[in-house]
């Protein structure tokens, strides 16, 4: 015990722990009304959130003070943010990435609020629940991952939507023959490739295996994981070359420019370079079946929403705001301005949705399981210091699968042993 407190004292002396929270404390005095920390620093989501909070202020006559922080910085500082003086409510992600902070005791339990919530499916409820069975998360919107393509390209070339992996590969081969790059692919940021891995694993080994793998319970050297990389390797010749040097935006542009035929991305991504006229030309199909035992029952649909900090100072105001944000009208107020997502609440009317959003809703409604995304289904430190690098290494050199999975497994053991 004395050693521990000594170390803690040393760490505090470093100032590294205390400083960010001190800075955060300078930002907002204990004023009236609820404060909200937002990571929505991009223009479109920022304005969309502003619309939603304005709707709340109008309804409740209570002010919401929003502190928007750059998206990446918000994530990088979340640890110290929650230990310092966090805002009452803040934006975050569902799944393991939320459960991690719940386990650390940094989040407020909102199970009683959840009992009054309506319109959320069981799958959504599960993603809002901590490991202790209590709810912590108010789901807001989600954006499923799928295979995106242009209707006009499929129509003029006579391509069929592939149902299984063989058809998928045959379609890719055909596209290559026709002078198209079958798959637009960019992984410079490190995360876009994760979606492909997740789908290959869930289709080949099932959702339960995938989640167990993400939680560190299955071995990365197992034949199942090797099979995933083997399947992926068989597709790589059909992917855009040089993916590690290309951003996902550049990849989406080649889909938009009809240079590439398909792209595995999330609903938020491929539409961005499309102009509003030809947005209707963008379409999606679910990632094809690999093992009939698992079919296409799992869908990857990362969900964003809100959490309440354990240290929240305006608890009642915060709970009131959360209850509002869980309603369909709050979600629709947001989606009006940012139509690249879908409301998490099933009660939200789909009349205002475009065809793509409606398709996304059907995709998720028909799912038996919903995964969150590799970096939300596993420990954040494992995802960011091991998996990003491993997938990039695989893309650059797909032949050394043995070395790759062994290296991942060794590092996994070290990281998961830490707790």
């Amino acid at each position, binding site marked *: 015990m004395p*050693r*521990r407190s000594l*170390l*803690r004292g*040393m*760490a505090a*002396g*470093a*100032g*590294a*722990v205390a400083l960010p929270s001190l800075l955060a404390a300078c930002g907002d005095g204990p004023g009236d009304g609820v404060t909200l920390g937002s990571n929505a620093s991009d223009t479109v989501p920022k304005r969309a959130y502003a619309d939603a909070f304005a709707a709340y202020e109008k309804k409740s006559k209570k002010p919401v003070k929003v502190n928007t922080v750059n998206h990446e910085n918000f*994530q*990088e*500082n*979340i*640890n*110290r943010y929650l*230990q310092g003086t966090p805002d009452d409510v803040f934006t975050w992600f569902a799944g393991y*990435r939320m459960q*991690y902070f719940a386990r*650390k005791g*940094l989040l407020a339990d909102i199970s009683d609020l959840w009992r009054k919530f309506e319109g959320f499916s069981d799958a959504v409820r599960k993603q809002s629940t901590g490991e202790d069975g209590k709810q912590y998360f108010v789901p807001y919107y989600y954006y499923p991952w799928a295979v995106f393509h242009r209707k006009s390209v499929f129509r003029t070339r006579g391509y069929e939507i592939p149902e299984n992996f063989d058809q998928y590969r045959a379609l890719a081969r055909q596209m290559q023959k026709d002078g198209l790059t079958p798959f637009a692919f960019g992984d*410079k*940021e*490190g995360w876009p490739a994760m979606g492909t891995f997740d789908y290959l694993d869930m289709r080949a080994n099932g959702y339960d295996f995938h989640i167990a793998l993400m939680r560190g319970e299955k071995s990365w050297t197992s034949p199942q994981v090797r099979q995933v990389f083997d399947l992926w390797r068989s597709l790589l010749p059909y992917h855009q*070359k*040089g*993916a*590690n*040097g*290309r951003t996902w935006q*550049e990849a989406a542009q*080649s889909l938009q420019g009809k240079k590439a035929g398909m792209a595995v991305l999330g609903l938020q991504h491929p539409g961005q370079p499309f102009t509003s006229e030809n947005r209707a030309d963008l379409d999606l199909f679910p990632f094809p079946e690999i093992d009939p035992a698992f079919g296409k029952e799992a869908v990857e649909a990362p969900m964003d929403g809100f959490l309440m900090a354990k240290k929240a100072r305006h608890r009642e105001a915060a709970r009131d705001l959360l209850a509002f944000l869980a309603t369909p009208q709050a979600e629709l107020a947001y989606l009006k301005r940012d139509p690249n997502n879908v409301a998490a609440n099933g009660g939200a009317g789909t009349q205002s949705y475009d065809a793509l959003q409606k398709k996304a809703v059907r995709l998720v409604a028909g799912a038996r399981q919903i995964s969150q995304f590799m970096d939300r289904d596993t*420990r*954040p*430190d494992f995802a*960011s*210091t091991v998996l*990003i*690098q491993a997938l*990039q*290494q695989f893309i*650059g050199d797909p032949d050394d699968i043995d070395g790759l999975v062994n*290296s991942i497994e*060794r*590092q996994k053991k*070290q*990281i998961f042993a*830490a*707790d």
Partner: protein
Amino acid sequence: MPKTAPRRARRRGPRRHTRRDRAVLCVLLGLPILLDLVLVWGPTMASVGLSFTDWDGVGDITWAGLGNYAHLFTDYPQFWPAVRNNLLWLAALGLLATPFGLLLAALIDRGVRFSRFYQSTLYMPVVLSLAVVGFIAQLILSRDQGALNALLGGGKDPVDWLGDPDLNIWMILLAACWRHTGYVMILYLAGLKSVDPTLKEAAAIDGATERQTFFRVVLPALRPVNVIVGVITVVEALRAFDIVYAVNKGRNGLELLSVLVTDNIVGEASRIGFGSAIAVVLLLVSLGFIVTYLVQELRGEERR
């Protein structure tokens, strides 16, 4: 004994300080020392201490002994590439950019035509932050949309300057050298201006060629500048971070020790102990280079 008496008296000198003098001394010396302890040595020692522990930034700190180091040296695939890249960085800045900067300074100092123009053009990148240099590098080197591939014609399979791990480090080193050369040039230009011209004249009268004059007379006279340039080069090489972080977060071929420290410590679930172990390695490498360099320089100074 009378000879030693005055010396002893002089030695007793400090005692003649008044109480006020001493107070002033204490404040003037004490404050910087205190700041140094709190802001520099405190964090350094905390890092060393934490490097022997496991800590995620929230829960308990647990003792890990040498575990972090063992893991670092054996099972962390990014570690050795990062060490190699740090050394490459040092070599490129020290053996290419610095001599090149000296050459340019010497040429400009001799008064080539348009020397003002060259001087300002070469100095221009120095005012840019390395992160900005990174963004410029991306505009030029991006595989699909970069200016360089557009110029080269590209063809069906353009070169992936920033995505290919065998290539990107060299491209980034080029960009880093671009900036460093200007920096070194300006330092040497200032130094060359202060070299007494009569030295060169004397050498010329003795029949020395221009090369001989430069290497035997001018360069030794530049010794103080050499020390500064040397230290700056080592520091620049070891603290390199922003440019690779701007390009691809220091992954896939652009690993550096500073990036690995950030990767592990900054983030939602911090591996503070492990990150600290990497930081300690970086600290030892830096101390090794800087101390050896300074010791040699100071010894050289004594010898003359």
